[in-house]
């Protein structure tokens, strides 16, 4: 039986890139237009703090991804990845923002109001809304088209290559983190901050201990990342990156099709329309 698996050495697994191969309408769209779409969504989500607006933006982003046939697994992966951050923000927001006139519950300095609970929900929705705004482009734009789009907008090639390569290695480093965690746990490191032989902590020292327990993992990952980035840099130069006296060419060419102009027009019109509506609503 042939299993489709990926590795180089044992202990070092690799998995899919952020880019999801496909041929949907977003995949075919010019990357510059997708940058504009993502930027418009990001800006709008950052400007307005309205739960109904955030929900609408999230719904729109899911519709765009679904109609491009991005697998539901990938969408679920984004939610899983952001779940901890969303939870933290929703829980911590009322603690750090006790404002609001409609008090529901109070205990010392902790004050729950209708207003800060609504704002906690808005902030909780804003995180995935911002995330999906970025993933609209990242899931649907291959590395060469991403670089080509950035260069076409005036970014130097090396900067575009660095950005695209960094994105390409995010899943790799995530998996290195998992492998390193396993190796350190096997040596008795408890990532909950306890030693292998147990021991009680008060909540604060437990939190500090938990943070400190991740240091061995983080340091080992950084060492591995350093070695890998050095190899990547050498590989790039040994394949002619920055060859003097040569005008670089690109296998991938960009061309604005009518559909791209239409998408760009819809993005601009949509952004203006939403802005006008939100201003009118107040």
């Amino acid at each position, binding site marked *: 039986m042939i299993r489709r698996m990926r590795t180089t050495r044992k202990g070092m697994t690799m998995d899919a890139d952020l880019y999801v191969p496909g041929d949907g309408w977003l995949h075919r769209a010019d990357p510059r237009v997708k940058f504009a779409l993502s930027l418009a969504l990001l800006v709008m989500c950052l400007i307005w703090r309205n739960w109904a607006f955030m929900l609408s933006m999230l719904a729109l982003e899911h519709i765009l991804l679904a109609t491009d046939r991005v697998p539901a697994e990938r969408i679920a992966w984004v939610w899983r990845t952001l779940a901890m951050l969303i939870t933290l923000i929703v829980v911590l927001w009322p603690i750090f923002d006790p404002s609001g006139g409609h008090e529901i519950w109070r205990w010392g300095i902790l004050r729950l109001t209708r207003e800060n609970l609504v704002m906690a929900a808005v902030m909780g929705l804003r995180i995935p809304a911002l995330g999906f705004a970025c993933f609209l482009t990242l899931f649907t734009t291959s590395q060469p088209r991403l670089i080509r789009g950035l260069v076409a907008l005036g970014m130097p090639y090396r900067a575009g290559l660095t950005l695209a390569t960094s994105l390409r290695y995010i899943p790799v480093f995530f998996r290195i983190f998992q492998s390193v965690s396993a190796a350190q746990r096997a*040596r008795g490191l408890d990532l909950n901050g306890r030693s292998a032989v147990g021991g009680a902590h008060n909540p604060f020292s437990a939190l500090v201990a938990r943070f400190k327990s991740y240091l061995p993992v983080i340091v080992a990952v950084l060492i591995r990342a350093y070695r890998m980035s050095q190899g990547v840099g050498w590989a790039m130069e040994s394949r002619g990156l920055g060859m003097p006296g040569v005008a670089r060419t690109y296998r991938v060419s960009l061309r604005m099709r009518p559909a791209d102009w239409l998408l760009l027009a819809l993005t601009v019109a949509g952004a203006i329309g939403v802005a006008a509506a939100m201003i009118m609503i107040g």
Partner: protein
Amino acid sequence: MSLDTLIETHELGWRYAPVVDGGRPIDGLGSVTVTIRSGEFVGVVGPTGAGKSTLCMALTGIIPNLADGEMTGSVRVAGMDTATVGVAELSSRIGYVQQDPESQLFCSSVEDEIAFPLENRGMDPALMDSRIDEVLRLVGMEDYRTRIPTSLSGGQMQRVAIAAALAADPDILILDEPTAALDPDGRREVFAALDALRRNRARHDLTVVMAEQDTSHFPGWADRILVLDHGNLAEQGDVSLFSERRELFDRLGVAVPDDVEPDLRIIADDASTPSRSGDEPIITLDHVTYRYASGGRTDTAQRPPALDDVTCTIPRGAFVGLIGRNGSGKTTLARHLNALLTPVSGRVTVDGLDTRRHTVGQMATHVGFVFQNPDHQIFCATTREEIGFGPKALGRTPQQVETAVDKAMRLFGLERFADVSPATLGYGDRRAVALASVLAMDTPVLVLDEPTAGLDRNLSTRFLDTVAELNRAGTTVIMISHDMAAVTRYCTHVMRMDDGRLAEYGRLDRTVAPSDHDHAHIQDSRHDPTHENHTKGNDDGR
């Protein structure tokens, strides 16, 4: 430099800059003078740390242009002085393949990897597609053109790296241990691709410099062999060196081509009734089944099991060789022994503990686990701290920790590195630190994942002799390995996994003649001509 001399090094020396402030420079090469003619196939051999990779880096110009250190002497490649010409410019004549596939494939598809050097040279985009097809065909990867490199096996990734190095039609191909990071399947794939390339090179007059631990293909391929030791050229000559200077290779720990890996013969045992031997079991696997979940999927019951109803017991004090093809379930099984994985069904008991009821941290007092990649383990500022981390995490007293650290450092000759950052050591020494770090935990069970991979024979022997000493003192050892010579020499028992099932298990038979067919007869996958071309991967997973 004569007319047909393409590469010439003159008293080439290199010292790596200290990685940390106040550290010592690390010697890479002493004084190497060598000339390589156009069209030659040169094999570079030597023990771990001999300077093979450093020499390759010097020939590509990475030394002295990109690596930090101090160079003496000179290197001229195709008439260019590497001290004054940049790596990118040198790359117009040189293709370079590194050891580590994952750090040299940085694009999002195979075709993009091949296009990258073509774009950098300003090639007409209209001509690129045919060139991409041509080089992928050369390494047998034409069907993988649109694949994401990270979805490929290690061997396939190295073939893509070779294709990328050849894309711009260089005169010289430098291969720095292209199979060192690969399992037997991957090695076989890469050697097959190189064989096709070798047959093709006569047409293109390609000069090849190939550093490699595995010398088995050099007799048919290499025009000349360079033997490095401690950064210097110890010997050079044609492939007859392997027979004429056998004692040199033995001394250096370099396997010579006629070294034949032994066949294993095991006394087939009924794994479910091991107690008949009267040995006290320390590990019991009772109908263990395990399935991996995939991203976002919950239908794990639909996936083929990574471990399929595995039942066996391992007696205390055994030295078990855990063998099998990639994806057969070796690593999955090993990870059940310290609760990194727990079975979907069945039960694993180690040293009296049910692994489902204990955390990995709690199991660490009973099971030491040495991972293959030492860089996944090393993080401390000094070797002493690194080795002491495990015993300290297990709650040992400072005195016990100190005693354990001193003993482990002595076992591996690491005293001279006690106050040195282990991350700055060479590969062999980092492996020694990783192994010493786990041995210092003094656990009754020791699991080793490919402990000899990438090491020369002398280092392998030194490591395994130390482990064997612990085994004789009562430690139970489980060793995942593709090295059949090591399994034959050290193991008392052999477990062979196949597609998640325990295919064979029993004592290693050291007495029966090879013709006796009453006993199991197994070999590593590299000898199996019917073996499918497994895409290796996720073998953390398998």
